[in-house]
């Protein structure tokens, strides 16, 4: 029964050509729309730029989180697919570039950059030592640098292992991961506070970092799941990608859908309970005009649909359902980021337009192009990893 395929006979294959073509097409179309939008509606485009940054950062740093989580927990089932996360994590490298459009329009996006306002506003001037342009810039650079650094260190060891088969590299990566986790917790919290929470500089929620984190890891997991299922259906991994592997992805997705809902509800419940005007304002804004439907939509799209879509045991193992649900969850995360960002741009009513669509297409294209570029250069399976064989033979 245990006819484990000889993993060391792995031969590298080109990715399916329509996968690559789709990536390029989305990238080009998205780029055209993005550039166009910069000329048509500079401010709206800048807000969409924040969404783009946060979404791509989610995929990148979320993937890095899953790599680290695998090393730290000693998981084996995910080892055969770790490269997918490693390739997706490469989007971290372009974060500085996609942060630029938003960065150069900070004045239109962030209320607290207006010095004359800050002077007359008690709260903003009290927050000024933290919320000022130069410190903000430094923080953004530091956070992205931390992510890129650890991404580079960890994936370099992993790549090196392909040829050297040195088990010590795994041990090194475990140590790196242990160092990264606290840095990750801090950086993602403050990154979310800087780029999303400070859109509404008077507002604060102590759980906000966790809220963004929950969406981040969910989105990255969905992206990984989608690519793994798609490629393994075409026979890219190994013969026996079994229901056990699929089930693990499905169960994790389901778990993190619930985690997101739990955090989102906790944030809402505490603010609703305390009923302090400076906190409730954020939710009231999202209950105004069209935003009300948008908020109800968030509950349905981000929780109800994926919850019931992944609830039953067979649905966690069905490749078709997994592919659909992971695309759905990616959409839900974009929707979530939009729900956080856009009320600052348009307070009462808001209908997503071609600019947001363009940025969304661009995000997909960008992620795919980077993934394809990495997949073209490196092995899709970490053939030197000591856990690989056990991972392939994994049984629940």
């Amino acid at each position: 029964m245990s006819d484990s395929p000889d993993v060391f006979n792995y031969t590298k294959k080109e990715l399916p050509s329509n996968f690559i073509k789709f990536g390029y097409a989305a990238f080009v179309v998205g780029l055209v729309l993005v550039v166009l939008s910069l000329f048509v509606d500079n401010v709206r485009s800048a807000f969409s730029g924040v969404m783009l940054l946060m979404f791509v950062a989610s995929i990148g740093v979320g993937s890095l989180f899953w790599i680290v989580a695998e090393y730290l927990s000693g998981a084996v089932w995910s080892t055969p697919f770790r490269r997918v996360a490693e390739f997706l994590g490469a989007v971290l490298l372009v974060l500085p570039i996609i942060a630029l459009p938003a960065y150069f329009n900070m004045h239109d996006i962030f209320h607290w950059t207006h010095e004359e306002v800050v002077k007359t506003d008690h709260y903003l001037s009290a927050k000024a030592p933290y919320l000022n342009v130069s410190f903000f810039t430094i923080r953004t650079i530091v956070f992205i640098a931390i992510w890129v650094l650890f991404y580079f260190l960890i994936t370099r060891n992993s790549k090196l292992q392909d040829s050297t088969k040195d088990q010590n590299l795994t041990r090194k990566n475990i140590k790196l991961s242990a160092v990264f986790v606290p840095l990750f917790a801090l950086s993602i919290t403050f990154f979310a506070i800087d780029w999303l929470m400070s859109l509404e500089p008077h507002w604060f929620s102590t759980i906000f970092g966790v809220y963004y984190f929950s969406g981040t890891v969910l989105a990255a997991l969905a992206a990984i799941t989608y690519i793994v299922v798609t490629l393994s259906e075409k026979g890219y991994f190994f013969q026996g990608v079994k229901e056990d592997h699929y089930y693990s992805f499905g169960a994790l997705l389901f778990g993190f859908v619930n985690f997101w809902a739990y955090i989102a509800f906790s944030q809402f419940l505490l603010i609703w309970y305390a009923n302090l005007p400076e906190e409730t304002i954020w939710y009231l804004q999202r209950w105004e005009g069209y935003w009300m439907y948008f908020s109800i939509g968030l509950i349905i799209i981000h929780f109800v649909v994926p919850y019931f879509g992944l609830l039953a045991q067979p649905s966690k193992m069905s490749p078709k359902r997994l592919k659909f649900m992971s695309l759905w969850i990616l959409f839900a995360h974009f929707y979530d980021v939009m729900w956080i960002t856009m009320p600052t741009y348009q307070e009462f009513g808001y209908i997503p337009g071609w600019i947001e669509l363009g940025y969304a297409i661009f995000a997909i294209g960008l992620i795919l192009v980077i993934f394809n570029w990495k997949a073209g250069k490196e092995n899709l399976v970490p053939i030197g990893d000591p856990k690989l064989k056990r991972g392939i033979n994994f049984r629940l």
Partner: protein
Amino acid sequence: MSDKILYSLTGLFDTPDEIIAAAKKVQAEGYTKYDVNTPYPVHGMDSAMKLPMSRLPYVAMVVGLTGMFLALFFMWWTNSVDYPLVIGGKPYFALPAYVPIMFEVTVLSASIATVVTMIAIVFKFPNNSHPLLDTEYMKHVSVDKYGISISAEDPKFNYESVKSLLESLGAKNISPVYFKDEVINFKPNTFEPKFVLSLIGLFIVVSGLTYVTLNKLMYLPPFDWMMEQSKVIAQERSDVFEDGRGMRTPVEGTVARGFLPYKYKDNPDAAGKFLVNPLPATEENLQVGETKFDIYCSPCHGYLAEGDSRLKGQFPNPPSLHSAKVRNWSDGRIYHVITEGQNAMPSYAYQLSREERWAIILYIRALQRSLNAKESDLQ
């Protein structure tokens, strides 16, 4: 060996893949009474053994949903129907606050119901024995081996053929399991003294610990730190203030919302002359008057205002309000009595709003009319 009754033939495997293959094979051979024992739930076993779906999830769902709706119903009924209280400025029916409780009750009732159902129906409570318990086989499959046990009761069972089947599957430690004497002679006895005594013992220990924790331990430092806080408690003295009074009097000149100064202080005649009842004698106003009269006035004046106090001589009985004197008083004059009090009767200005006082007067007029009707009322 001959005097023992065979229960089953067992075999052990090393990997989950092997046990799944073995289960598939045994199932395909047409055996019906066999079981698989593994240290943890092996995924895919249900389909390998072709087991029908367990019915336990239905119990969990039905009881869980019942728990959820009961919790919701209970909170809705207590908080919004039976005893509506404004808490933290929230509506009486505050759904977000109910969500965590509904969630907890759902999980709690579903899990308890599942466990109880399993013990009662699947394990056939009070049965607590099984031939496989206390065997070498069980020691292996509860640690690191995967075992299959084919029952001798199976219609297809034949010692030699089962043995060769297990051998052909590659099973190790193929060994028979016999019924133990205790199992054969087992008579369930729920009220066995040992069992009952240990229940009682458990009860005493748990309630004793609870008593000590709640009544003694919680009053010892550091557990009592939360009890003594430097905050003001209603009706209690407080050292924070110089005069030691916890409840502060309003700053001098403070006026409540909607407050109007009473112009006719100590001047009943002017009140009777100039004050006019602003309320029309509608059913609604009379209703308010009746309610408030019954609450605030009737203890002394009686439900019909005849001076029949319910205070059993603890307070001087007031005169009847049906006297010619009061009947001839203007509304304003009665208003003055309610507002200022009169001799032994205290003022009701704090308890009753202006409108409520006037409504009470409308009601008193109605009571007076009921005993001293005019000619015209009879027609």
